[in-house]
Structure formats: C-alpha cells, structure tokens
C-alpha cells in the first residue's frame, strides 16, 4: 500500500503497526487476489444497481440514476471510541432540541445573552409559524444527523448538525447488507454491532411522538416530494423497511381536525408525517403558495394537534452554520454539562474582526456559505488556485454575513481500494440520532470517503464515495 500522508491521522496504522481493530482487515485485503477484488467490486456495483439505490443531483446532467461509488474496505471504530462518540452525539441532539423548544417559546437563551437575538429571529430558517406551540413531547428535530471528522486518536470535531431531514441512512443500511452478503467470513471473524435495527427504531421514534388526539396504533407515513427527488430511493427504502406508506402531497388532504390519506378503502387518518420535504413546500396556505408538493391546511392541523410533522417546520434554525458556533453554549446552558464533542473553531465573516482575519488567511481556511449544503459554494483554501481565492475574496467582501470560515482540518484517512491496491483516503462520519420518547442511536453511521487522492471533499456530488462503518462489539 502507499504510505500514509504525513500530518494526517491514519485510522488503520500507527507508524508501521496495524491497529488491533484493523488486523483482520489487513489479513483480508492482503490475501485477496486482484482479480477477486475486481470481481467483488463489480458484484457490489451490480447489487447496488439491482436494488435500485442510486443518486441523482439536480442540474448535474449525466446519468440520472448513477451510483455513489461504494468502497469495500470498511471503516472501524473500537467499542470505547464509539462509546465516547455516542455520548457526545446524544448530548448534542438533546441540546439542539432544547434550543428549538426554547427559541420557539420563551427564548431564555437569548434573554440570557448567550446567543445574539438576530441570529435567531432574522434567520430565514426561523419559522414564525412554529412559535407559540409545543409539538408532541416537545421534540422538534426527530432525526439528527451529525457530521463528524476525526483528526487524532481521541480528537473528533463536529463539522455541522443536520436537524431537518438528513439523508444518507439508506446507504448506511445497504452498505452493511452488501458487505455481509459478499464477505460473510469477515463478520464471523469480527464481532460487529448490527445496524439493521435502525428502521424499527425510527418507526418506534415516530410512533412515540404521535399527537395526543391519536387513538390506538399511530398511523405513520413518509411524505416525499416525489420520484424526481434525488433521495427518492431512500424515501421508498425507509417506507418499505418500516412498513409504512410513502405518500406525496396529492395523497393527503385536510378535512375537519385531521389529515387523511386517500386509499382504495377510502380516507384513512394519518397521525405522524415524517416529511422529506422542505418547510417552504409543506403547506401552500401557510408557506409558499405555489407549492404543489405540499398539503393545503396541513399546518393548521399540525398546530391544532391533529397530526405531528417530523421534523417540526423551523427545526432548521438549529443547524444553521451561524448558529452552529453556539452549540457548545447550548449544551452548557440547557444541560449544564461540558460539551463532549468539540466544534471546529469558526470565524463569522459577519463580525468585522473575524472577516478581516479570514480575508488575510484565505489560503489556509475553508470558507463556506452560511446556508449552503452539499459541498457547493465552498472554498478549500490550501487546495484552491489563486483565481478561485480571489473570487471568494470578492464574494465575502460583497456579502460577509453569508460566509463563515474554519481552519482546514486534517481529516483522518482510512484505507481505500484503488488501482494499485489500497491507499489512505480522507473520511468523515454521519451518525443518525433518533429523538422521540427516548434518544436512540444505532452503532454506526455513514462514512463518506474522498476518493480522489489528497482530496478533503467527501460529498457524493463532488466525487465522494461511501464505506461500511463498523463498531466492534465488546
């Protein structure tokens, strides 16, 4: 294998030593002949295509049903490593929900001067329509995806939080299915904690936040924008695993105090809607009037307690990149605890001092749009050429409040199959935390890998791939 990049934490090796967690994988890959590897790789691809797990990005052109590359080399966490991550993730999910419950009610954290008011009330993600109302069990964000990177043996940073409708969990589940099918021996040699309980936990979580008016077994549905959405596969996959209906806005209607689903047996009441639709499109009578994807009157039923919407409209104010800086503060304020997971130091270009620093150090920093996602509108200073840096300089000067900057993190590397065998490639991690009656987390997550040598951008829209993520059982 090629040597580790200096200055980056190698998850498999420490010097010339292979870490214990990776030892069986070292034997596995080094005893695998090249032709078998090629065979297995194409087998994996066929399996992915067979199940139809594909990924489409709007406006990118090309094959609308292209696959996200799957790398067969798993990424491994030991049990103690995971325990710490898990505690940190639960803590963060709890604090984010406490923050949402607060800003949509009394706004204590603002009154206490711990976060500037304008970051909340003037935030586009802050929904007036969610004010003065307590959703079932006081939970606002039911599925919290937390993006983490590792920079050292015990050093993890949270890159960003996703409180609205984080996607990708279907890859976590399918990656595991495919690895188990192709390499059963690996699962006999290693005690790997299962992740397949996710769908059951998700259903349990959603059912646990049914509104008080619900009688009997709650009827849960997933609301999708439709088959042309890039995550449609995931929507239908989750609906199928949970055994719930996958509905579009046109399948639902409001009558009286409830939301109903059009079925071949007649109208059926719906209690919990796991929506994979942006706030603006949920209800044309409350938000964008031109939305054909939503359900007219849905917000009225929600506010009057006839249905629950997961996540709550307006949950996005907690995962805004400008609000992100204050998450450690939220943990201290609401939970009275010290943050277990660290934030990446962040400069707010909206602040003149920060902005000045950022403009002077553009070639060292990562610059992101406050509301951007998917790795678009991002500058990776050390990898960018002069003209790109100048372009961002202009953009920041024109609209400083739209940008934040962070140091370039030394993302850890994990061995990844390449032409010549294996080589270290940078990875991140997105675990999915479920918040309902209790906070639940399956041991694992989605590991994304930057397949290009030296690249730090792991987004699937920018040439990233995915890996199975193992947590070793004790």
């Amino acid at each position, binding site marked *: 294998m090629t040597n580790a990049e200096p200055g980056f934490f190698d998850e498999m090796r420490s010097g010339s030593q292979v870490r214990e967690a990776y030892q069986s994988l070292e034997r596995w890959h080094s005893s695998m002949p090249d032709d078998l590897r090629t065979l297995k790789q194409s087998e994996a691809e066929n399996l992915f295509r067979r199940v139809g797990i594909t990924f489409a990005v709007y406006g990118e052109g090309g094959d609308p049903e292209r696959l996200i590359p799957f790398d067969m080399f798993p990424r491994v966490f030991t049990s103690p490593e995971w325990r710490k991550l898990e505690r940190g993730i639960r803590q963060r999910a709890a604090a984010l929900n406490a923050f949402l419950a607060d800003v949509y*009610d009394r*706004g204590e954290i*603002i009154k206490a001067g711990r976060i500037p*008011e*304008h970051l*909340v*009330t*003037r935030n*586009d993600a*802050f929904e*007036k*329509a*969610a*004010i*003065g*109302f307590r959703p079932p069990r006081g939970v606002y964000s039911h599925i919290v995806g937390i993006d983490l990177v590792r920079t050292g043996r015990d050093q993890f940073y949270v890159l960003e939080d996703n409180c609205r409708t984080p996607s990708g969990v279907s890859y976590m589940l399918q990656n595991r299915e495919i690895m188990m099918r192709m390499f059963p021996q690996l699962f006999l040699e290693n005690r790997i904690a299962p992740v397949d309980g996710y769908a059951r936990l998700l259903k349990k979580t959603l059912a646990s936040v049914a509104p008080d008016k619900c009688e009997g077994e709650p009827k849960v549905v997933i609301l999708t924008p439709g088959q042309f959405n890039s995550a449609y596969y995931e929507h239908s996959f989750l609906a199928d695993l949970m055994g719930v209906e996958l509905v579009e806005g046109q399948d639902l*209607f*409001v*009558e*009286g*105090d*409830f939301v109903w689903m059009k079925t071949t047996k007649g109208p059926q009441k719906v209690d919990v809607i796991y929506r994979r639709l942006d706030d603006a499109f949920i209800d*044309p*009578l*409350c938000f964008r*009037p031109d939305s*054909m994807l939503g359900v*007219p*009157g849905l917000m*009225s*039923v929600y*506010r*009057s307690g*006839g249905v629950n919407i997961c996540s709550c409209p307006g949950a996005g104010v907690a995962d805004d990149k400008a609000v992100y800086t204050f998450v450690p503060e939220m943990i201290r304020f609401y939970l009275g605890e010290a943050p277990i997971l660290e934030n990446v130091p962040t400069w707010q270009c909206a602040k003149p001092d920060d902005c000045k620093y950022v403009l002077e150090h553009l070639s060292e920093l990562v610059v992101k749009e406050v509301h951007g996602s998917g790795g678009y509108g991002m500058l990776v200073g050390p990898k960018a050429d002069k003209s790109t840096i100048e372009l961002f300089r202009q953009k920041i000067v024109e609209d400083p409040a739209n940008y934040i900057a962070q140091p370039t993190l030394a993302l850890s590397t994990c061995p990844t199959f390449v032409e010549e065998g294996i080589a270290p490639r940078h990875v991140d991690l997105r675990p999915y935390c479920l918040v309902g009656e209790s906070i639940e987390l399956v041991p694992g997550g989605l590991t994304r890998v930057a397949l290009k040598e030296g690249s730090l951008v792991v987004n699937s829209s920018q040439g990233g791939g995915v890996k199975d993520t193992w947590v070793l059982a004790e």
Partner: protein
Amino acid sequence: MRLSVHHVSRYHFDTPVRRLVQTHRLTPSDCASQRVLSWEVFSEGAVKGAVYRDGAGDLIETISVKGPVTELVVEVRGEVDTTDLFGVLRDYRETVPPGTYLRGSHTTDADADLRALSAEALEGLEEETALNRAHALARAVSGAIAYSPGLTEPATTAAEALALGKGVCQDHTHALISVANAADIPARYVTGYLHSTSDGEAHEASHAWAELYVPGLGWVGFDAANECCPDDRYIRLGSGFDAQDAAPIRGVLAGGVEETLEVSVAVKSQTQSQHQQQ
C-alpha cells in the same frame, strides 16, 4: 363605538373543484381597543376544523369542502365594541419576538428608492424618539404614494408601488413595512375592517394598515393610506409579514381552474352605515 360587520366573499370556479381547503383569519381577537360581542364565520357545505391561535395571537380556522362545487360563499357577521387607543395594540396575546418582523418578505424588500425614502424621512427629526421616527416614516409613505385604486395588483411589491407613486392600502402598507425595516424597525401587515365616516374620507371597508414596533409602547398601528393611526373606526383581524401572509382568506386551486371573486363588506355603527361593493 359599536361596529357591526357583514362581509361576504363569493368565489365562483369555472371548473368544478374537489376537496377545496381554505384557512380563515377572519375572527377578531379581544384586546384593549376592541371587544368582540358576537362573531360568526359561515360557509355553506363546508366542514370547519383545525382551529388554532397562531404565535401572533390570531385565530385561524380551516374549512374544507368535498365538492365538486363551482361556488363557495364565505359569510362573516359580527359585532365589536371599539375604543380609540391611538393605534396602540395592548393586551393582545402573542409570543412572536418583534425582531422576527425585521425580515420582511419578497414583497417588502427595499430597493434603493425605498431605502432613500426611509433615510430622508428620518433625516433632521427634531425629537428622535422611536414614536416620532415611526410617524415620520408613515408620513413619508403617505406623501410618496397617492391613493389611486385599480392601478396595482395583489402581487405588486413595495418597490413597484413606490416607483408608480400610486396604489391602494395594500401598497401603502407594504411600503411602510419596507421603509421601517430599512430603518431597523420591526413592522408588519395588519388586516381588518374600517368604518368610514359620512365625509367619505376613508377609502376601503376591508382594510389593511401597518404596525410598527415602538419600544415602550409595543406595536402601534399606522394607516398610511388614510394618514392616521387606527382609532375606534377600525377592527383588527390579524397580522403577517405581508398581504399574503396576513390574508384573511387563503386558498389554492388546482392548475387550470379560474376563479372569480365577488366581495361585499358593510361596516355600520349604530347611527351611520356604509356599504361598498368591490
């Protein structure tokens, strides 16, 4: 003053419509300047439900009609006792932080002209109190946009109305929100009814005005179209970022269906009466 309201909206659809849903912000709420004696919103053939009070304190009702129908009539009848509090909204149950109303909307986004109007209005004010600033902005809008019905549309933005220099109460209100936001003053769109006095000064019975947030006083109404603050001739229904957000009736139609709307509003006091067809 005791005011009685009779407000009828008659929708006609060129194609039969199924599963029609509307949200109504058609019921006034009690506050220091108004007390509701009786109020009823009625739509023949509609199921009413999903009633709630939003964060801004307004009562929202939802109606649905299974259909197919080619007509829907929404009829409002009620009586309210009003008191002149010089536009100050007091004892109104709401929880939206005023700062939320600094965001405005697409309709109230300020262009260079609106920003200039805002700055000029506040230049050289003798007493720079928040209330004086608000009054100055309302005067500036009254001066910049002449009342002239039929020239603007529901979709007209504040910037477009200012460029035209003419408009109706909706345009005055959008412009006032815009210049207030430009001066970092929270502002919002308010809908309601207006009883016009016999001299015919007031223009519209189904009316709209702005509320600006004045620290110490709270929300204060400014009717730039009538160059005054709401008094006991006004009944307040509800508020929002702009006309669409605050609309007394909101509905959507499937693509291709054309609707025509006929509205009649009558607001009467014990001694006087006024009736207007739109």
